[in-house]
Structure formats: C-alpha cells, structure tokens
C-alpha cells in the first residue's frame, strides 16, 4: 500500500517536472541552428529526433574534392532509390564533371548544378529540418556552411498496402499493415511527424532473428510501462519469433486468460491513436499485425468508426455494442433460465407462444441450445476454412438446411433458432475479434449454470466473471479500468463517446506523462 502510494507520488512529481519539458511539436527546436561542422549537425539532428534506428545518415566527400558533406533521412519514408540516383550519385560520382568545368564548388553550385531533383530548399533552423525529415525529405549539409538543403525524396506513389479485413470500418481509412516491417513503420511515420516517436529494435527468435520494434511516443507513454515491456521483450526466448500474437502472449502476465491480454490490430490509424493515448505498440517483421499494450475491456470495445460520426450517433452505436457483448455470452443462458425456471417473468401470450412452438421437441431447452450452439460454432469455423468460392455453400446449408429443416423436423424449436441467431449476430458486433471469441467461449458455461441453477446461476456466473475481470491486470493497468478503478474523467470515452471538445485530456488510467491533448480550442484536432 505504502509502496503504491509512493509510486503515485513519484509519478506526480515527474509529471510536474516534465510539464514543459517535452513537447509534441517541433516549435521548440526553433532556437537551434545549424553549425558549420557536418558531424556536429548530424549528431545534433539525430539527437533531436531521439536517435531512432530508422534515421539514416551518410557522410561522404563531394566527388573529387575535399568537401565533406552528409545526408540524413528516415528510411521508412523516403524513396531510397531516388536518393541513390539523384542525390548520392551526382554528388559523389558525377560532380567531377562539374568541377572540371571550373565551377567553384560551394553551397550554391551544389544546389544549382549537382542535384537532379525537383524540389530543393535551403534551411537553417532545426525545426524546419526535423519536420521535413519526418515528412520524408532528405537533409543535405556541406562542411563550412551553416545552412543545409532539404531535398524532396518523399515516397509519393502508393505502396502495396493491404485493406483491413479483420477490422473493417465504414468511414475510417482503408489501410492495413502488411508483412514488411519497413512499410509498416512508414505507415506509422506518415501519420505522426513527431520527433518524439520512439522506435526501439529487438531481434526476437534465436534462429529466426525476426526484427521487432517497440513503438511509443516519448513524453506521452508511461515510462514504467515502456520499461516493463522492454524488459519482457529482451527476455523473450523463442526459437522462431513469427506472429505478433506469439510475442504478445509471451509478454503478458496472464497468457492463459480467454480475454485478450494484448490488443492485436491491423490498422495503422488505430495504432497511431493508441500511441497518442499513451499506449505502446510492438511490430514484428513478417506479421501484418501489431500488438498494443496495455489493453482494457473498454478499449477493445472501441472502433475507429466511433470517431467518424457525431458523438450522439457513435455513443448510441457503442452502447449497442456493449449490449451485443452482453447478449452474445448470456442470451441462450437467459432464455434457458427464464423458460425452464421462471416462465412467470414473461408476458402470458409470449409464454404460450414459446411453449406451443416447443411442443413435440424431444430435447430439453439446454440440450437444444447446446446442439444449435455446436452447429453455429462449426458453421463459423467452416466458413473461415472454405475458399470464398465455396463459401456460399456453407451459408445455404447452414441457413436453410439446418435452420429451417431442423425446425420442420421438430428437432429444435423455432424460438431456439431465433435465440441462437441473435447470439451469433450480436457476437459479430464486437469490434475485437479475440474478445468476440471470448464471449463465445463463455456461452456454454453460462448455459450450464442457467440450466442447473436458473437465473440464480446466471447471477453467480456473472459475479465470478466480474471478479475475474476486475482482478485481471496487464502492465499495471486493471482490465476494467476506467470503469472499476473509478476514473470518471475517462468515462467520457468509454461506454459513450463525448464530443471532441470535451476530450481534451488523454485517458488518465493509462498514466500518460503529458495529460493534455490540446491546450487551446483553436489547435484542437483529432485524428480518427
């Protein structure tokens, strides 16, 4: 207890110190100017961009002269081929031709006659340079000049992006991660031009040596979480580090839980918003998914579409999603409990119509539900396995043959078909696939409880489930926060989604270092 309190206090102190320390934008780099020494410039620039591994620099001598020069760029964002052929090649190899023609080699002549690239700009202060490099330009500086050149080397044409298939959205961007780490990092860099975006590289897998990258924003993410994840990542001992999920299970406390302990996403936009909330991501080469920690149940219930509609609309949709989560694990259980223990709770006409549809059905409600549930699970599994061309068969066989014929044959009652269908539909409304799986797994235990103990059993099951959920923790964050370690401030973006003007603070439960999203109304801007 005392320890906890101490930690809290320390954190508060730190927050106070850092309040004006780290800023997200590049404005604070304005007072820094270039010096005349190339190495010095490159080191300082790299430092101001936190030395992430994808910042590349190359020092060289301009062909045939003693002029020292260097370029600096971010590998994920630039067209490297362009740099090779239009920047390095002319400067290193072809510049001799220029020099031969008696032109004096100086800053101006490099700018005017050595670069075969359309857009070249002069720059002196760090803020312009950093912003340009972060946007995919290349910075070139020459010994003896306190100014440099910003050369446009942005990768403009579309890369072979994938379209999100597991987490589709209506209005959100239609971009997904691919199997190549570099492209994925580019997708993130493209969205955050913050010099504080930190990328740390890990080689995971004794044999595969897969590259994994820890991504977070310095100054937002809780350093404790980052440190914790760093430790866990470096202690991962694997033969082959292949999937994001595999690494995810290795870095969590409760890998056995049916509830997802890491969020797996294929959406760069989701990842970027999560980073800006103070979460930490891990990308792995060869996997089109990124893992995000820490994760909580309310986070898993959010969808990118929530931020593309009016707050009233998206709040209603989100509430209906919660209803879906509830029904998808409980609806068959509630049906069994009410019909076989408390038919008095239903309106008379409903009781009579349910009872009359059930006459002649040979099984009890529980067996009936179990049968249909098994069929449903098999159908879902089968429809994933089947190639798309044959997929139609499953829906016809499943929908018509099993649904209708089973009812006509008197094996199941039509009302049970309705119950199971509603359950199936509701489970698809859960935005996170893994959470949907968890809710499906919970169905059967709840059905057993309902058939043995009725509504009382459901209440017991619900209590156990809630106890379990609130005891779950990952990276020090409770699984049900901000609902149950009560933080009212964060409820604005939990079950409802408050208007953006009220969402000026980052979620408090994630312990962000910089708590403010926007300081004034004018600057307010939201990324979906």
């Amino acid at each position, binding site marked *: 207890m005392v320890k906890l309190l101490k930690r809290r206090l320390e954190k508060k102190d730190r927050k106070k110190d850092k309040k004006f320390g780290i800023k997200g934008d590049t404005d604070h780099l304005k007072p820094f100017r270039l010096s005349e020494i190339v190495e010095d410039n490159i080191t300082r620039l790299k430092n101001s961009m936190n030395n992430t591994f994808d910042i590349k620099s190359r020092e060289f001598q301009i062909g045939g002269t003693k002029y020292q020069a260097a370029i600096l760029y971010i590998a994920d964002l630039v067209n490297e081929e362009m740099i090779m052929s239009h920047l390095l090649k002319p400067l290193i190899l072809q510049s001799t031709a220029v020099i031969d023609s008696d032109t004096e080699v100086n800053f101006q002549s490099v700018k005017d006659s050595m670069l075969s690239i359309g857009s070249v700009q002069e720059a002196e202060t760090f803020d312009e340079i950093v912003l340009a490099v972060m946007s995919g330009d290349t910075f070139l500086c020459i010994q003896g000049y306190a100014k440099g050149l910003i050369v446009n080397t942005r990768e403009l044409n579309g890369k072979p992006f994938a379209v999100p298939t597991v987490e589709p959205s209506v209005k959100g961007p239609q971009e997904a991660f691919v199997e190549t780490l570099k492209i994925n990092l580019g997708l993130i860099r493209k969205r955050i031009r913050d010099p504080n975006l930190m990328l740390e590289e890990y080689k995971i897998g004794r044999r595969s040596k897969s590259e994994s990258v820890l991504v977070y924003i310095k100054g937002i993410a809780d350093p404790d979480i980052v440190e914790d994840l760093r430790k866990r990542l470096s202690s991962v001992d694997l033969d082959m580090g292949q999937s994001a999920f595999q690494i995810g299970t290795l870095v969590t406390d409760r890998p056995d839980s049916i509830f997802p302990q890491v969020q797996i996403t294929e959406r760069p936009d989701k990842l970027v918003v999560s980073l800006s909330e103070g979460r930490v991501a891990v990308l792995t080469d060869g996997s089109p998914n990124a893992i995000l920690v820490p994760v909580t149940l309310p986070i898993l219930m959010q969808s990118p579409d929530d931020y593309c509609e009016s707050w009233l609309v998206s709040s209603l949709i989100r509430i209906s999603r919660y209803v879906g989560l509830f029904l998808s694990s409980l609806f068959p259980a509630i049906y069994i409990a009410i019909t076989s223990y408390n038919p008095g709770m239903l309106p008379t006409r409903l009781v009579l119509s349910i009872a*009359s*549809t059930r*006459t002649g059905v040979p099984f009890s409600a529980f067996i009936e539900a179990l049968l249909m549930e098994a069929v449903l699970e098999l159908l879902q599994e089968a429809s994933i396995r089947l190639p798309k061309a044959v997929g139609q068969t499953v829906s016809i066989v499943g929908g018509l043959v099993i649904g209708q014929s089973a009812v006509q044959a008197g094996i199941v009652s039509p009302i049970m078909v309705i119950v199971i269908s509603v359950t199936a539909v509701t489970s698809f409304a859960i935005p996170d696939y893994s959470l949907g799986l968890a809710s499906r797994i919970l169905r059967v235990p709840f059905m057993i409880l309902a058939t*043995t103990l009725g509504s009382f059993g459901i209440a017991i099951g619900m209590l156990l489930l809630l106890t379990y959920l609130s005891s779950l923790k990952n990276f020090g964050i409770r699984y049900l926060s901000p609902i149950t370690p009560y933080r009212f401030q964060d409820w604005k973006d939990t079950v409802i989604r408050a208007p953006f003007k009220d969402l000026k603070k980052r979620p408090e439960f994630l312990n962000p270092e910089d708590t403010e999203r926007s300081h004034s109304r004018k600057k307010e801007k939201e990324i979906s």
Partner: protein
Amino acid sequence: MRHSLKRSSLLLFLIGALLLTGCWDQKDIDTRGYVLGLAIDSYPPDPQSSESTGPNQASPQEEEKLEKMQLHTGEPGYAMTIQLPILANADMPEGPGIQSAEGSQSWEITQIGNSFFSINREMASRTGLSLYYEHLQVLILSEEVARKGLINILDMFMREPEMRRGIKVLICPGEAKSILDVVPRIDKYSSVYLSGIFDNSSRNSRMVYHTNMGDVICALHDGHDFVLAKVISTKDENKASGGAVFHNGRMAGWATEMEVEAINLIRNTYEGGVITVDTPKGEEGRVAMEITNEKAEITPIVNGDQVSFRIDIKVEGDYSEDINLHTHEKLSEPFLKSLEAEYEKEIQDLCTETIESMQEKFKADVFQFDRILQAGEPAYWERMGSDWNSIYPDVGVTVHADVHIILTGI
C-alpha cells in the same frame, strides 16, 4: 504444488456443490400447465343453475367419476374448474394462410372437493402437466359461492406464492364454469379475452376495474366493503356488466352498470367514459360528452354524533356528439353553459340515487366513507367507528358536480 492442489480441490468441491444442488425446480416451458382461468362453483350445484350446463356433456356419469375425489374429511362443497391451453392445437405460423389449428384450444378440467389446495393437487392425477398459476388471468366465482363469503375460499389464493395480485376476481350469476366454456371469436382463450376487457378503462366506465385479487384481499382484511366486476356470457361472448356489491365480505347483491358508473365517479376510479343528456329545454336533441378528467373530493362533516358527507365532483370533458340537434348556436357560450348545467344535474342525480340504493338495499359502504372518516376525522371514528354499520345507512350525502366542457370538436 500442494497449495494449488488444495485450491483446485476446493474449487472443484464448490462447483460440484453448486451444480449438484441445482436443477430441482427446473421444468421445461412446454411441460407446465399454464392455468389461465379458474372458476369456482358450489357443489352440489343449485338445481336452478344446473340446467344451464352446456350441451357438450356427453356422458355426465363418466365425467363425474373423474371429477370426484376421495376426501379425508367432510363432504365436497366446491367444484373448481381450471382452463388449460392446449398447446399442441395452438396454431403455429407454418406459412401464410395455413391454419393448422384444429380442435379446441383449451381444456376445462373440473374437480370436486372441499379444499382448493387438495383439489389443485388432485388435478395432477389428470393432466400430465405440472400446473402453474403465475399466468392465471381471471378467478371467476359463482354468485352462490360469493354469497357465502369470500374470506372462506380465498385463503389458498393469498398463501400460494404462484398467485399474483393482479388476478381479476369476477362474479358471475349462475355457473362460473360456463364463463370459461366460452369459445371467444377474437382470442384463443376465454380467460385471456376476458381479462383484456378490463384494459378498456379509459373508454368505458361502466365496469369495475379495481377488481384485482390484491385489492380484494386488502379490502377483506381491512373490513371495507367493495364492488367486484360482474360478468355474463353467451356461447361465444363475455360481457362485463355492472358489479357485485360486497358487504362484510359477502356478496349482498348486484349493482347495475349505471350504478357502477356512479361508484367509479365517487371513488375516483373513473378513467374515462361517456355521459349523455338531453339538450336543455326548447330543443329535442341529445348530446354525448366524453369525460376526460374527473376528480371527486369527499369531505366528512361531523356535528356531534351526526356525520354527513359532501361530495364535490369536478368533471372535464369534450363535446363528442350531438344527435337530432338543430340549432346554430351549438358553440355559443350560453348554450354550452346550459349544457354543463344539464350534465351537473345528471351526475348529481345519478350519484345521489346510487348512494341511496347502496345504503338502503345493501347497506354496503362501497364508497368507503369509513376509510375517509378514519383518515379525516379520527376522533369521531374512535368514538363511533364500531357502530359504523348501523350509522351508514342513514348518513346524509350531498353531491355537487362541476362540469366543464373543454373541447367542442369543431
């Protein structure tokens, strides 16, 4: 290791205990018998009303064998009939236009005995379903049973946890079973149809709406008099018509529909209805007013040992219809004023007549003046309360009505 073994065995024990103690009252929804209506007649039947038994009694002797049960003690006094829906005959929606329903929709089982609880359990030997009373809609008592007193027979209905307070208690002249035998045109089950009639309270005020089991039990225990709904039937129709007046827990007689309307007006249970008057002198028309708002205030006036009541009835209503009215001044202020006066007179007359008839014929305080005295004049009630039954028939009551026509509809 040992620790975790201990823990898991404890967990296993807990889960086992939970699951093994379960299931004891589980019953699939289609294996219960949903008793929708319940009728109580006296046995042996009145020679007069026995003639009115339905024609579909094929072999009365056979039936009687089943209906009689062995008794531990005494002679059979009551015949209880329950209505069970025949679920197999309920038409399932199998396709547009296809009606699979054949045969009767409900089964009326009669059992004769002298305690309702034993009758109830005896029925288990005839149904194959476990009887379930939470969906009971109506309890119908025959006049004969009601005249013997309600408190004798309602005990099971108060004790049994499956009995709801919302069950409608209805009184029927003649045989109560005949009400359940009705095959209604618009519903499958006569009990459901019958209880639906009482949802029309905002349309018609000539029925008794406060006829629930809960109300009856409260009134019985507090010693108040009350009115229950009277119901009559033909082969395929029921009608709630007037009320049965209860005095000291026994039925004292019938109240007409108009009297029920007046009782509703005075007891503030009027939710909407129509009153029609002839137009004031000069014209030969008739005007109907729909009452939308009604409020009666009863003030006890105590003068020594004398008590009298003043009832102020405030009524708001809409001009709904006129018939045979040939005047161009329908909307003129004086005309409406004189119309309002007619209504006031009509309401006053109706109420005064009803009060007199209740006082004289039945001596039944269905307006529950005693309750008002108890609350408003506790000192008087303290002194004279025990004699209320003898005081009541001679209590003077003045009725003042105040009618406002709000909307004229044109």
